C-alpha cells in the first residue's frame, strides 16, 4: 500500500476531489495547513505596526491507495491542482505496511 500526501491551493480542493472521485478513490482525509515556500504571504498593518504574514493557507490531502494506483492518483492530483503559478504545492508518496478499516477490521485493499 502507498500513502499519497498532497498539499494544494485551497480553491483547487473541489476540483481535485471530483477528479479523484471520478477515478474511483472512495475516501480521503483532509486538513487545512499553512505552507511556507517560494510563494510569499502578505502584510497587515494595525495601528502603525506592520505584520508580515509569512505563511499561506493550503489544503493537505491524505489518500491511502493500492500500490498500482499510486502513480495514477499522483498524476490526477498534479493535473487538476495545477495553475502554473508559484505555490501550487507538492505531492509525495510514501510506503504503507498495512491499512485497516476500523468498522470491519478488513485489511489493505479490502479496507479501502
Amino acid at each position, binding site marked *: 500500500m502507498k500513502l499519497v500526501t498532497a498539499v494544494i491551493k*485551497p*480553491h483547487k*480542493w473541489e476540483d481535485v476531489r471530483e477528479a479523484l472521485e471520478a477515478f474511483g478513490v472512495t475516501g480521503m482525509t*483532509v*486538513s*487545512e495547513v499553512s505552507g511556507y515556500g517560494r510563494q510569499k*504571504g502578505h502584510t497587515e498593518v494595525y495601528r502603525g505596526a506592520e505584520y508580515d*504574514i509569512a505563511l*499561506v*493557507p493550503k489544503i493537505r490531502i491524505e489518500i491511502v491507495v493500492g500500490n498500482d494506483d499510486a502513480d495514477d492518483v499522483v498524476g490526477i492530483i498534479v493535473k487538476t491542482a495545477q495553475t502554473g503559478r508559484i505555490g501550487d504545492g507538492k505531492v509525495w508518496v510514501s510506503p504503507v505496511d498495512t491499512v485497516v478499516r476500523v468498522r470491519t477490521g478488513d485489511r489493505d485493499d479490502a479496507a479501502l
Partner: protein
Amino acid sequence: MDGYYAWMIVATALVLMMTTPALALFYGGMSRSKSVLNMMMMSYVSLGIVGIVYVLWGWSMAFAGDDVGSLFGNPFDAWALKDVPWESYIGGVMFQMTFAAITVALISGAIADRVKLSAWVLFVPVWVTVCYFPISHQVWSTGVGFVSKHFGAQDYAGGTVVHINAGVAGLVLALVIGKRVGFGKEPMRPHNLTLTMIGAGLLWFGWYGFNVGSMVFLEGDGGEKDIAQFMSETGVTFLNTTIATCAAMLGWLAMERILHGKATSLGAASGIVAGLVAITPSCGAVDITGAIVIGAAAGVLCAWAVGLKFKVGMDDSLDVVGVHLVGGLVGTLLIGLFSTADAPGGIDGLFYGGGFGSLGDQAAAAGWAILWTGVLTTVIAFAIKFTLGWRVTEEAEVEGIDSDQHGESAYDLHSGLGGGTTAPSTSVLAKHTVTEGVNA
C-alpha cells in the same frame, strides 16, 4: 408627566432589549458552539410568541380583566386590548409584556442543547398563560391579587413574579426532561465567553428599565406629588440596583477565589446577573447598606449554589435554579430583614425594628409562587413529554442541535487566503448547490 412617560418609552425598549439580544447572548455564549443558535433562538422565539399572546389575552389576564377569585383576570374582558386607552399601551401593556417574555426566556437556560423547537414553541404560550399571567396578577394587582391581598409582600420589580417563577419552572423542566447526553462526563464548557460578557453588560444596562421603570405612583393623578415621587424614588431604585450589582460581582469573584483559587470572567458575568436578580424585588425596599448586603449575599450564595447541580445530578444546564431561584429567594427574603421605612417601600424589616411581620409576608409570597408554578409547570411538562415529546434524538444531540433543529452552524471562520485562522471549515470545502426553485 411627559418626562415620566418619555422614560417609560425607553424603559420598555430597554427591557425588550434584555431578551433580544442580551439574554440570548448571555446564554448563547455559555452553551457549546454546536448549540449556540438553538439557545439564542429560544429567547428570540419567546419574545415573538409572548409579544402576540400578551396583547391578545395576557394584559387582560394580568391586569385589565375582571378578577377571578384573586387568581387572574378574565382573559376575554380586554381581549386584543379592547377598550384599553392608548395612554397605557407603553407604560402598561408593552412594559409588562417584556417582563413576561424575558421570564419564559430565562427558563430556557435550564434545558439547553436538547429540546425540540416545536416543543418550546408549544410550551411558551401555555406556560405564560398558566403560570406567568396569574402570578403577576396575584402579586401586582394591588389589593386584588391573592398574594397582594393576603401577604402584602414587597416585590418591586419581580423577585417572585419573574425570578422565583422562572427558577422553579427551570427546576421542574430540568428534572422532567432529564440530563444531556454525557452530562457530568463530557466537557460542556462555555464556547464563547465574550458573548456571555456582552450579554451580562447589556442585561445590566437594560435592567435599569426593569427596576427603575417599575415605579408605581402613590397619587397617580400626574400632579406635583407624582413628579416629586418620580424624581426621588427612581434615584433610590437606580442606586440600589447599581451598588447591589457591584457587590454581587465582587462577592461572586471572592467566593470563586476561595473555592477554586481563581476569579473568572464567567464569575463576574454571573455575579452581575445574580445581583440584579436579588435587587429586583428589593430595590425599593432597602437603603444603601441593605442593597450592598443583599448584593453581596446573592453573589456569594449563587456562586456556591451553581455547584450543587453536579452533586444532585440534575442538569440545570445554565443554572437557572442556581442564579434565578436562589438569587430571587435571597432578594425576596432579605427584604424581611433589611427593609426600612426610610426607603420608598416604607416598611421596616426585622433589623430595622419591624419585627417578623415583613419576613413572614415575604416567605409566604415566595412559598406561594413556588407552589403555584411548581405544580402547574409539572403538569405542563409531563403533558408535553407524553404527547409531542421534548427531546431531539440522542444522535442529534451529539451531532449538535443547531444542525438538527435549524440546519445551521453558527461559525464558519475559514478565511481563505485572507489570513486569520485556517481551520478546516467543513462548509468551505463543501459542494454548494443552489437548488433551483427551492423557494418557488
